[in-house]
Structure formats: structure tokens, C-alpha cells
């Protein structure tokens, strides 16, 4: 499977340009046991791990792009290189005309990186005090600072949370405050690494709608990684699928489904609940009078026609399979091509 060329930016010249980006780590390794430990003292063997391997894409201003891939696929490493935390092994990156890892002040004032598993807020003091610090650090004019805090407080329903010590907040409340702190300087680009990690469904939805609203209001560009498919479905028209550090797909979410799913799902409610529908396709589930059939995409029309002609039916819908299934399919195909017999990668999407 070859990487698809980047989707043509819909809205003007790219704001992010990534070309042949690579990042390798050397990890020291040794076998188990004392003898191996002693040998490792004298000679350490290192293995090269390609975290990101030759990735090319561009992002247009105002786009929301979702990065998908299992754990260890290279999503976070990519975001870290784009934000400037990591120095790549090879390739070029241009974000807003800057080379990120030079970490020029002018660049840092235009971006933000939010990591779901790390905090930037001071643990022991109320978030509002950390906000004040960010105001000074990012040189935010007082007037703009006040209006931004007001806006974020309203959008994220922060209210009283801002005045409690951060350590007393729940995980979700803390994430809301983290997001607000990261956006006080109105960055043009948001790098969000698992922003909904560990949050309950309601809070996930709140964060999601906030990100969408922020993108709409300020035309901010958002690059997002998430394990929750719903995040990606709700926010990103465009997805980039990364696996083993390589780019497997870059394009519209809908295209991902049509390209990688060779099946369609037909949900049928026959009048006679006992009727056998297996001649029309593979029966996936049959519960409470609803039967779900999987049919090869090319045969969808014919199968539907035959069903309607030969079985009395109360209701029938044709659907794309769930996106999770499609993603698993993508990784499964890649494994097959790799000839990787272990295939122990869980599609954590």
C-alpha cells in the first residue's frame, strides 16, 4: 500500500509543510539475566527504532486534521517535532515560516501544545494565577487577556474552577483549565495530543465541541491525535493514518471508509423474524428482529434488490461499517504486506 498524496489544501497556501520527516531513536537492549547485565556493562547493543519514517503532508490554515494510529505509531513524535520539542533525524518542516525546533520566540507565541497526560498548570495554586503568569510570558495585552479569559470561561464553563487549587479539580475539570491556559495567547496552531484522554463521555463531548467552536471562531489550525474515534469523527474532515512511523492514508474521512472498507452493512427488519437471510450476505448479528448483513461493496446494490424482491421487509438501510472496523482493516492490510507474523498490534483507535 502506498501513501496517498496530501489532499489539496482547500483554503489557501499551506500553513504547515512537512517533507520526508524522519525520527529514529537508538534504544539500548540486552537479554534478561545477570550475565547479560554484566556483558551490557562492557558492550551495549543499540537498536535503531524508526518512530517516524519518511512522512510528507501539508496542512492549510483553518484545517482540523486528525492523526490516527495505534500506540507507538509515531503520532506523538510527529506532533512533538511540529511543535518544536523534538529535533528530527531527517526531513524538513516549515510551520508558519519557522523551523519549529529552533524554538524562536516569535514561533512559540503562535502555537500551543496540549498533552492529555501532562500538565503545565501549577498544581498547588488556582488556575487563574497560572493564567496571569501566561499573560506576562506571552505578552498578552491586558484588554485582550481579560476578554480571552471571559470567552474561554464561558465556552468551557470554567466559572468557580479557576479559583480552586488545581490539585482539587477532577481530571476533566483540570483538562478544561489546561486547554484554557494553552489558548490564552490565541495561538494560530493547536497541537493537541490526546486531549480527551481518560475523560468521561460527557466531558469528552464538551471538550470536542469546544475545540470545534474555537476552530470556527478563530480559524485556528488544529492537529489532533486521539484514541477516541468519536473525537476524530466529530472534529476532523481530514485524517492522517500513521502506522509504524509511516503514512498510510491522508485524505477525507469519508474516503478512508470507501477506500479501505471492501464491505457495506445492510440492516434489515424482515416481517418474519425467523426468515433465513444468509443467502444474501454474511449475517453479523440477528437480534430483536433486526438482522445485520455484511456484503461485498460491489454487490450491495444487487443484494439489496434481491432482498427487497424475495423477502417481505419492514425496513432496510445500507450503511458504511463503523469507522473503528475500517481502521482495523487498514492496519490489518499493512501487517499482511509487512509479512509480520506477530501481528500483535492492537488498533487503538
Amino acid at each position, binding site marked *: 500500500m502506498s501513501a496517498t498524496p496530501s489532499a489539496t489544501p482547500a483554503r489557501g497556501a499551506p500553513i504547515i509543510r512537512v517533507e520526508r520527516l524522519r525520527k529514529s*531513536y537508538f534504544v539500548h537492549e540486552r537479554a534478561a539475566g545477570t550475565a547479560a547485565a554484566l556483558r551490557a556493562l562492557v558492550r551495549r547493543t543499540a537498536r535503531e527504532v524508526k518512530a517516524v519514517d519518511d512522512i510528507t503532508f501539508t496542512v492549510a490554515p483553518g484545517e482540523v486534521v486528525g492523526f490516527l494510529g495505534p500506540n507507538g505509531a509515531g503520532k506523538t513524535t510527529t506532533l*512533538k517535532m511540529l*511543535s*518544536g*520539542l*523534538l*529535533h528530527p533525524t531527517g526531513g524538513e518542516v516549515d510551520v508558519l515560516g519557522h523551523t519549529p*525546533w529552533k*524554538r524562536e*520566540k*516569535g514561533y*512559540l*507565541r503562535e*502555537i*500551543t*501544545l496540549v*498533552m492529555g497526560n*501532562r500538565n*503545565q498548570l*501549577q498544581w*498547588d*495554586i488556582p488556575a487563574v*494565577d*497560572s493564567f*496571569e*503568569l501566561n*499573560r*506576562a*510570558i*506571552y*505578552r498578552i495585552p491586558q484588554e485582550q487577556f481579560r476578554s480571552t479569559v471571559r470567552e474561554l470561561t464561558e465556552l468551557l464553563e470554567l466559572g468557580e474552577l479557576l479559583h480552586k487549587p488545581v490539585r482539587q479539580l477532577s481530571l476533566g475539570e483540570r483538562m478544561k483549565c489546561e486547554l484554557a491556559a494553552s489558548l490564552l495567547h490565541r495561538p494560530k496552531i493547536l497541537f493537541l495530543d490526546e486531549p480527551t484522554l481518560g475523560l468521561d463521555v460527557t466531558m469528552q463531548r464538551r471538550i470536542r465541541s469546544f475545540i470545534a467552536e474555537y476552530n470556527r471562531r478563530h480559524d485556528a489550525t488544529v492537529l489532533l491525535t486521539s484514541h477516541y474515534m468519536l473525537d476524530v469523527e466529530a472534529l476532523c474532515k481530514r485524517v492522517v493514518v500513521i502506522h509504524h512511523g509511516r503514512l498510510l492514508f491522508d485524505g477525507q474521512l469519508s474516503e478512508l471508509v470507501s477506500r479501505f472498507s471492501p464491505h457495506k452493512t445492510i440492516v434489515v427488519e424482515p416481517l418474519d423474524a425467523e426468515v433465513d437471510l444468509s443467502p444474501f450476505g454474511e449475517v453479523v448479528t440477528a437480534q430483536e428482529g433486526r438482522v445485520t448483513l455484511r456484503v461485498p461493496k460491489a454487490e450491495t446494490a444487487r443484494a439489496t434488490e434481491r432482498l427487497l424482491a424475495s423477502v417481505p421487509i419492514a425496513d432496510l438501510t445500507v450503511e458504511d461499517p463503523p469507522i473503528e472496523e475500517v481502521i482495523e482493516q487498514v492496519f490489518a492490510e499493512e501487517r499482511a504486506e509487512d509479512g509480520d507474523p506477530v501481528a500483535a498490534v492492537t488498533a487503538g483507535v
Partner: protein
Amino acid sequence: MAVLLDVYRAQFKVALALQLQYRVQLVIWLLFGLVQPVVHLTVWSVVAQASGGSVGGYSGPELAAYFIALMVVNHLVFTWITYEFEFLVRQGTLAPRLLRPVHPIHWHVVDNLTYKALTMVVMLPAAGLMAAIFRPELHTSWWEVAAFVPALALAFALRFLIEWSFALIGFWTTRVAAFNQALDTVAIFMSGYFAPLALLPPQLQVVANVLPFRWGLAFPVEVLLGRLSAGEVASGLAAQAIWVGLAFVIMRLTWKAGVKQFSAVGA
């Protein structure tokens, strides 16, 4: 400059709020700072008495003055960054700070100064109490008090820059504590912390003049006690300035190399 002042003001407020959260810890650390000078003072006073009233040119009351001044000066110039830095790297809290448009060193300067400002409230009365008990003797004139101010400021800058650079070893290894122990051991003798440098063998005194440690602690104390000639004070200030310049360059280079290493292996 105005911008940096604004950052310092905001950081000071945060640092103050943070440190007031841990008042008990603050007092315990402070007590440690008080106990050791008292021990040293007592031991050396006994030695002075046993050797006919003075040792290395210091009488009992002069030793008292030395250790009380040393206690206050050391409190003002000491840092704890080598303990903190390793933690910052390992916990991953350094990474987000690298993405802020202000150098992380400023936070540590403010944090340090805030702690000093807070604890001086206890430190000065403690020094006063010790003075009442041990009856120190000073021979200080006004110009020495005036010279003490830049000597103290340069000592602070020197200690801060050296120890901050040293802490950056944390970028390469997570065992900074071991290196730090080695540095501390040398510093205890060569800085005048354990005893006035005049008590060292002459050869070691020469070494102490060359190393930076004296300029980061004993020198301002000696200036304040009026033990140095005008010429010695002037050349001492020059030595401090040279070391500060050198330490600044070392800090810049280590920081650059350290961050490069950090962002190569995984921030």
C-alpha cells in the same frame, strides 16, 4: 526589559503562592541552615581557645562573626537547582517549559529569590539571637559595607550560573545527585563553609583562590568582616566578575548542548 520585569513580577506572585503552601517544609529547611554554622562555630571556638585564643588569625569573637555572617551570606547565595533539575527532566515538566517564549532559567531565579525573601524574616532574627549569645567582633568600615553589596550580588550570580550549568548534567544522565555530591564535597572546604580559608594549609589557599568556590561564599563574608585590604577587595571583585563571565558562557554552551541532546532523545 520592561517585559522581563512583568514576567518576574508574575512569576514572583506564583512562587510566593507556591512556597506559602509549604510553610512547615520552609521552616525545616531553614533550621538545617541554622544548625550547621552553630556546630562549626562551637568547634572552632574551642580550637581557638585551646591554641591560645586564636587560630589562623581569628580570635573566638572573630570566628563568631565569621560564622554568623557566613550563615546569612550562604543562605542568600545557595541554590537547590541540582536537586530539582533531574526531577524536572524525568517528570516531563521541563518539556512544556521549553515551548514557552521565555527562558526557563528566569523561573529558577525568581523561585530562588522568593524563597530568600520569605525566609530572611526568620534568618535575620536568628542571626541576631546568635550574635547576642556568641558576641561576635567586627572591624567593618563604611566602604566595606558598600563593597559587600556587589560582592554578594556577584557571589549569587556565580553560584547560580555554576550550579545551574551543573544541574544540566541531568540532560545526559539521571544520576545528577552523585555528581552533585562530589561538587559539594570540594565546595565545603574550598568555599570557606567548613572553616575560614585562612585556616587551610598555604598551598590549598592558593588553590582556593583559583577555584570559583571562594568567590561564591567566603569572599563577601571576608569583605563584610573587614578582613581584606582595599586592594584585595578590588582584585576579589575582579576575580568574581571574571568567574561570572566564564560561568555565563559555560551555562549558555551547556544549555544549548543539553537541549539539543534532550530534543534528540525524546523530550
